[in-house]
């Protein structure tokens, strides 16, 4: 019997039970336990019973557990002196734990129906987290998140019904490993899933909740959304895609989404919204990799794990800046380098990582995906390369302006917040260097 999956899901739920005792310490303990368990489960891979864990889902488990711990640590200082709270600090940690538990549940279950339930549960647990810093705008953003994502994910349930109708089971392992390609019905299932789960993944045109929720949520919640929630939804989409791969549809949706997100990114004034659109671009790049298959899948996995640390670093840095300057507007933020050297370093590293600068891991992931795409469809390749460059220039120019232009009296907000941001950004660099080192060794 495999006990680890039960424990991984149970740890954050047990931490939630410490609502009136020590919610902060319990959340940190649950985060550490989940990282250890996620690492240990590697030695049992692959297995399938009521859970289905293979190397792909393991990568996602590592991502979720690491970003869960990082966000909890960052929250310790960030949530301490919020003036207008929509929810109490205790409720915040309880919801954060349940949110993580629902993501673990989604990743581990060997049943498409329960995966759907898990995705819906992530919405329930995370919706109120958006109003951690309460104002009229965050309330509106939270509501858009609830209604748009729920409506979209409800649509995805049609694909679950059709899977059950077609295969008379919802067992993920059995369906994927039965060479299930089944013509029109399979195509309908994966197409409906693309629109349904694509809402949560950030696929154009059903992405509209994404920049609102990311920009208005407290920084650690934005980090969880960008770093792990969207990838978890992408994981479910990928598992359905495996039923009957439909690359033409998926690649075009991904290419158009990359183009749209890059265009929107270019004229943002709010730095958190800019990073939100960058997340949309990265998720669709990963979707492109999954849709292409082969090396593209490896590229997508490298991209996703690096992106989770890079974007968490970016949102943690944004939180530090927001706390220090009181503004989310890029025009009102300048000269960070002098007053906030650690945050500036993490912000620059994170934005370079997220935009695919070498030697960060995102670069390696994108390299695999784009080299695969170049051999398949030169038109799509040309469009993607153009918009990836647009995004690279747009984000790095804006971040450089915030960091190096002008002067300000901004100050670091304590070692824990700056430290968490820089550790996350450094891990994204480390993944790239380690992978490049291993790759070079293999070549030699």
């Amino acid at each position, binding site marked *: 019997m495999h006990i680890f999956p039960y424990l991984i899901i149970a740890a954050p739920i047990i931490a939630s039970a410490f609502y009136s005792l020590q919610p902060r310490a319990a959340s940190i303990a649950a985060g550490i336990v989940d990282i250890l368990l996620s690492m240990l489960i590697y030695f049992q891979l692959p297995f399938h019973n009521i859970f289905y864990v293979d190397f792909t889902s393991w990568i996602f488990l590592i991502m979720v557990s690491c970003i869960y711990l990082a966000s909890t640590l960052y929250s310790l200082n960030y949530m301490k002196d919020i003036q207008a709270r929509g929810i109490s600090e205790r409720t915040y940690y309880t919801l954060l734990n349940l949110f993580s538990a629902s993501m673990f549940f989604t990743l581990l279950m060997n049943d498409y129906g329960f995966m759907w339930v898990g995705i819906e549960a992530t919405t*329930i647990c995370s919706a109120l987290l958006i109003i951690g810093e309460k104002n009229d705008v965050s*309330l509106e953003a939270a509501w858009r998140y609830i209604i748009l994502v729920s409506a979209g994910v409800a*649509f995805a349930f049609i694909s679950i*019904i059709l899977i*059950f109708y077609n295969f008379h089971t919802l067992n993920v392992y059995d369906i994927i490993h039965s060479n299930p390609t089944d013509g029109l019905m399979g195509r309908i299932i994966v197409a409906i899933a693309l629109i349904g789960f694509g809402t949560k993944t950030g696929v154009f045109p059903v992405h509209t909740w994404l920049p609102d929720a990311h920009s208005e949520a407290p920084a650690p919640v934005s980090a969880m959304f960008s770093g792990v929630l969207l990838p978890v939804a992408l994981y479910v989409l990928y598992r359905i895609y495996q039923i009957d791969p439909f690359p033409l549809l998926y690649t075009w949706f991904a290419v158009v989404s990359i183009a749209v997100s890059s265009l*929107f990114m270019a004229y943002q004034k709010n730095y958190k919204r800019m990073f939100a659109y960058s997340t949309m671009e990265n998720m669709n790049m990963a979707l492109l990799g999954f849709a292409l298959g082969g090396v593209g899948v490896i590229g997508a996995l490298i991209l996703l794990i690096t992106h989770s640390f890079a974007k968490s670093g970016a949102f943690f840095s944004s939180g530090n800046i927001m706390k220090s300057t009181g503004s989310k507007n890029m025009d009102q933020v300048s000269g960070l380098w002098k007053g906030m050297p650690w945050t500036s370093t993490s912000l620059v590293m994170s934005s370079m990582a997220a935009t695919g600068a070498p030697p960060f891991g995102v670069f390696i992931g994108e390299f695999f995906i784009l080299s695969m795409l170049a051999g398949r469809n030169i038109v799509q390749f040309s469009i993607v390369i153009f918009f990836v460059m647009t995004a690279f220039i747009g984000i790095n120019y804006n971040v450089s302006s915030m960091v190096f232009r002008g002067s300000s009296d901004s100050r670091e907000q304590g070692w824990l917040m700056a430290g968490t941001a820089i550790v996350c950004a450094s891990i994204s660099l480390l993944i790239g260097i380690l992978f490049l080192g291993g790759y070079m060794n293999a070549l030699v």
Partner: protein
Amino acid sequence: MNALENIVFLSAALATVSGFYIQAQEYIRSMVRGQFVQAILIAATIFVLAFVESSIDLVVLGLLVLVLRGYLITELLERRIPGKGSDVKEKDIGIASHLLLDLVFIMIGTFIIYSLVFSRITFSIAGSIAGDTILVFPLALFFQGLFLIASRNSTFSQIIGYIEEENALVLFAIFLIPVPIIIEASVFLDVLALVVISSFVVLEKFTHNPMDELRG
């Protein structure tokens, strides 16, 4: 077409009509009660199918719809209506124009999807109680729910639109193939939890309009 088939067709059609009724209301309480009627109609459809198929699972499902959608959600929503509940209505909505647009949206949505996609597959309907044309009703109700969300700006209307969508999925599943009851029950609880969460938002924000901060 035998009597049971007629009953199933009629209740499915009435559930869709109740969606139009909700769309035509501007008073919140009327919309909530329309949702209650819709849940009762769906429960009735499920009970007929349970009788035809002698299925305990469907009986449980019908009871879940009755208790969770018919009673709990209706009660929860009614209690959240601010002030004098019966007087609260949405402002500045063009009922007639919305209904017309709604019809166009549903006609296009339902018939495009049905004729281009669903009609190409031969579905075997649960219990063979009706032909697969009955799938048109849940599809129409689904698009009706979507339109309600898109066309209105009050929190209540949008929640009810979402519940309509979920009701449509219940109908769709029971006509095609009822999914395992444990999953269906989890879905019901998810929707209930979402309505509970939404009711917190109702207290703070009754209407939703475009905001400059969230543009672009």
